[in-house]
């Protein structure tokens, strides 16, 4: 059926319906309309708007003096942007991988009929409820060389113990990894645990009858079943990593210097405090590009597997 004939039928239906029937037909669309309009304007419209700003020479205030892709060129030559981008790769990569490994490991341990499972699960998961600002403040205190963990270990007699990553330009980005893993790995554990509980018991029993040892069964049978869970976990974690802004602000402030900057803080700093609206917009567009680079393959595989399965 072609679109035009279907539209004609809709038209016919509307004309022949009673007035209450006609209202009923339209209500679902009417209810959705505000949200769709909001989405079109505030998401898609704003994306376009930011893109347009990124093509201008805007500084303190948006101006519409177009200079092509010059802001992107400036960005490519900006050392601070490269530090931020490299940091994102380091931070994002480590954060995702460690969260996955730790989360899956804890989930498997918790799945061994542990008596106090509920309590442990609550303990592992609670950091997810906190604001990244709170997390940043706490870890800043813990990692403070003079009063935190380093001082504590030294007071136990290990005088030469050093753990001063927070003030070390080469290591500051790793403190972000520690705090972020602390916050999010419990959530990954919960995802994996739900996945494990969803696996058909008989698969594992069959593998046991085949004579596999427990670690082997997990490696060969159970973990492959968790692929979809792992996929969504990677999605969520990568998304958190790219958006990470508050954690940096609270924990390192992007410092020392700008050693632990991330694109999110770079964008905010340039757009809001350094009067570089054009450059900030360009960096925001590149962040969007990064998200899309992860999202599109994910959605593609998701849709494909749905069609086949």
């Amino acid at each position, binding site marked *: 059926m072609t679109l035009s004939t279907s539209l004609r039928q809709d038209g016919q239906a509307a004309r022949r319906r009673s007035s*209450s029937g006609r209202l*009923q037909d339209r*209500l*679902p669309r009417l*209810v*959705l309309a505000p*949200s*769709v309009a*909001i*989405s*079109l304007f*505030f*998401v898609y*419209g704003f994306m376009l*708007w*930011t893109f347009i*700003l990124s093509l201008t020479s805007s500084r303190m205030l*948006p101006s519409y003096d177009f200079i092509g892709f010059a802001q992107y060129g400036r960005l490519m030559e900006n050392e601070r942007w490269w530090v931020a981008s490299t940091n994102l790769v380091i931070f994002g990569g480590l954060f995702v991988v460690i969260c996955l490994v730790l989360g899956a490991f804890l989930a498997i*341990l918790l*799945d061994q009929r542990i008596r106090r499972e*509920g309590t442990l699960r*609550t*303990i*592992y998961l*609670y950091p997810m*409820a*906190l*604001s990244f*600002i*709170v997390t940043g*403040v*706490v870890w*800043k*205190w*813990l990692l403070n060389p003079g*009063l935190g*963990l380093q001082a*504590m270990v030294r*007071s136990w007699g290990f005088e030469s113990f050093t753990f001063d990553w927070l003030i070390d330009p080469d290591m500051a980005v790793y403190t972000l990894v520690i705090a972020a893993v602390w916050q999010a790995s419990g959530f990954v554990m919960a995802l994996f645990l739900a996945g494990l509980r969803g696996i058909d*018991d008989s698969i594992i*029993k069959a593998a*046991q009858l085949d004579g596999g040892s427990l670690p082997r069964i997990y490696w060969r049978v159970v973990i492959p079943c968790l692929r979809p869970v792992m996929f969504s976990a990677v999605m969520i974690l990568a*998304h958190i990593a790219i*958006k990470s*802004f*508050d954690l940096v602000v*609270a924990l390192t402030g992007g410092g020392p210097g700008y050693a632990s900057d991330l694109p*999110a803080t770079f*964008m*905010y700093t340039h*757009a*809001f405090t350094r009067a570089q609206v054009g450059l*900030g917009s360009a*960096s*925001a*567009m590149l*962040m*969007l590009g990064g*998200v899309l680079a992860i*999202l599109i393959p994910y959605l593609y595989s998701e849709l494909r597997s749905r069609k086949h399965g």
Partner: protein
Amino acid sequence: MDNVIRRRTPGARMARLALHAMLLLAALFYLLPLAVMLITSIKPLDEISAGSLLALPQAPTLAPWAKAWGEACTGMRCEGVGGYFWNSFAIVIPAVVISTVVGALNGYALTKWRFRGSELLFALMLFGCFIPFQVVLLPMAQTLGWLGLSSSRAGLILVHVIFGIAFTTLFFRNFYVAVPTELVSAAKLDGAGFFRIFWRILLPVSAPIIVVSVIWQFTQIWNDFLFGVAFSAHDTQPVTVALNNLVNTSTGVREYNVDMAAAMIAALPTLVVYVLAGKYFVRGLTAGSVKG
């Protein structure tokens, strides 16, 4: 993994012991920051510089909490975070309620009243879940200015509703997809209309997903910092922004105990929600996602 006969060999017992040891170690890792935060927040300042991180307070005091709540300096002002704590509530509650109601209606219309293109509309809205918010910050600032909502609570509520409905719609849609459509057909034959079916048939079975939506939105909006710092002024700041200002205000001696008390204050509402209702959150979320 139940009902399997296992031999209780010494090796198996050792493995069991190691298992518990590892779980306990992990629990310590997750609990340590909270414990340090709590202990530090009730220590006098001299004990902090003298003693160890984990040493229990000799003379526990609530003075740091009182100072954090009512006197500590957040930037220019020295009124503590108490006012900002209530600010956060004044922003969070309307935003959570509005976004949950809108999300529920959207999810209902998208699943139970499908029409040509409704799936496309859903995909369109869903994209809002994934964008980095940096990409909307500048236009949003300008739009809020035009609407006369710059630096106002109403402006922040609006922003949180706009970017929250993508999530709430997703939650409710995935939940309602699993509710049999025949229920709606039966109610249509019984003579009920769009809103009546929602109110009488769908809403009464929606408790699990309402819990998910409310908890999710509550923690997201309470914990938000980016929108708060970008779109608020002194008197409309949420508590996360105030906490950050408090910690970064460098006048005189760093009072770590006050910092920690303020962090506890900012963390408490979401922690309480999590401890009271976290169980239902995970349950509701997985119930939806498994079927969706």
